[in-house]
């Protein structure tokens, strides 16, 4: 459903991605791992239209979408949980969730369903989003992305800055989401977490894919080499 071919991305003169080829099937959960600065977030930014790319470098549901404006791409069905949650500080929890539905795509996700998935958010619905704990903020960010009723969900470092027990909770809800058929791409530095949820994994190093395969078929050594270089 999503395919990138030779995807490149630049920050001014600095080239961050050097021809990334990734293919995702409907219903798959893919993990992308890599060290700090490998280009994982850049990859997601290029797909969501926050960074310019060439039109044919990204195809989504058979349609070239590379470099379309971000607000158009989300309406086509790609939503993102950005790195660092990025909740809107002047919006309450509920408003943060509602703004996710701004693109008016229809689908299974509604405010009620999000509150079922994360009951604690309903209790805090009138609090400013940024007054919540890190884990709860991550739940809002996930809920906000789901409210867009995407067919592809991109998650950038869900575990960032969270306690292990909270990370497990977040990944449990992600499993519930994928169980309903959502196609998900998770970006992680936490290799174990990523390998546990993904059916396939890509490893990124300095803007290039250095390894690709099924977690069950890859050895620790292969992953270590692809992750750190050497």
């Amino acid at each position: 459903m999503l395919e990138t071919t030779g995807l490149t991305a630049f920050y001014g003169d600095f080239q961050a991605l050097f021809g990334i080829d990734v293919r995702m099937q409907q219903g798959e959960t893919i993990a992308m791992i890599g060290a700090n600065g490998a280009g994982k977030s850049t990859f997601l930014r290029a797909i969501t239209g926050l960074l310019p790319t060439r039109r044919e470098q990204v195809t989504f549901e058979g349609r070239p979408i590379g470099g379309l404006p971000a607000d158009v791409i989300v309406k086509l069905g790609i939503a993102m949980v950005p790195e660092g949650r990025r909740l809107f500080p002047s919006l309450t929890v509920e408003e943060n969730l509602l703004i996710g539905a701004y693109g008016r795509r229809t689908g299974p996700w509604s405010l009620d369903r999000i509150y079922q998935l994360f009951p604690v958010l309903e209790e805090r619905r009138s609090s400013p989003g940024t007054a919540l704990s890190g884990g709860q903020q991550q739940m809002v960010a996930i809920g906000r992305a789901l409210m867009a009723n995407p067919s592809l969900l991109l998650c950038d470092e869900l575990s960032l800055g969270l306690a292990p027990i909270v990370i497990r909770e977040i990944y449990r809800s992600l499993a519930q989401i994928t169980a309903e058929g959502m196609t998900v791409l998770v970006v992680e530095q936490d290799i174990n977490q990523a390998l546990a949820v993904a059916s396939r994994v890509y490893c990124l190093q300095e803007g290039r894919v250095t390894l690709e395969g099924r977690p069950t078929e890859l050895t620790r050594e292969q992953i270590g080499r692809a992750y750190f270089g050497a």
Partner: protein
Amino acid sequence: MNLLNAVVQGILLGGLYALVAAGLSLIFGVMRLVNIAHGDLIVLAGYVALVAVWATGLHPLLTLIVVVPIMAVLGYALQRGVLNRTLGADILPPLLVTFGLSVIIQNGLLQTFTADSQKLQAGAIETVSLALPGGLAVGVLPLAMFVVAVLIIAGLQLVFYRTELGRAFRATSDDPSTARLMGIDNAHMFALAMALALAVCAVAGVFLAIRSIFDPAIGPARLLFAFEAVIIGGLGSLWGTLAGGIILGVAQGIGAEINPGWQLLMGHLVFLAVLVLRPQGLFPKGSLA
């Protein structure tokens, strides 16, 4: 007695200052743009109303039916065509461009309408007044304008905090790039904010043009009052802006009562006092719901 009267007049005039200021603060709030041409756009609205009166013979208040949409469309086009291109990390380009716009509007008005002072004549209703206890008399027209100003500010507050459009405005203001991930088109949002601000300005411009004389060069003075009202009230709160406008109006009224030459001086002094003693304004963001 006269002082009380001055206070009442000041409150009524302050409502109009607040209306002008609300447009200024709305634009700053949504896109961090300080619109130097704001006062001139208000004067422009007055001239548009004047032309409408000449062309159709309508009562000046009825011209709002055309002036408000004209200013809103102008705002949308101005933002999309010009001002959006100036927005970015640097706040200097929008300042310079709106300064240039201010000069263009003033000169355009001067060329078209000459430097003569104008006033919109509202007819008999201008002299009708209500007698209040204590021998006070309040003009019906200024009172009605004040009420409309307060209602518009309440309406803006409602739009901002109770509607999807308001949510989108606030989200864009918080974090434009994440707002795009929600499907919000920032360029369109900024243009809608400018359209809304100029629609509000159009009302203020017509009211002010009925209450007092105006000429092509008076815009910067209007901008200054709006600016002072916003600072006195505190940035980012519409009710604060209303309070700021009223405080400014009352200060000017009392100043004029003491000595006719002190009207503006007194307003500036209150403004400076707030800047020195409470630079965040009297009712900063978050202090009023």
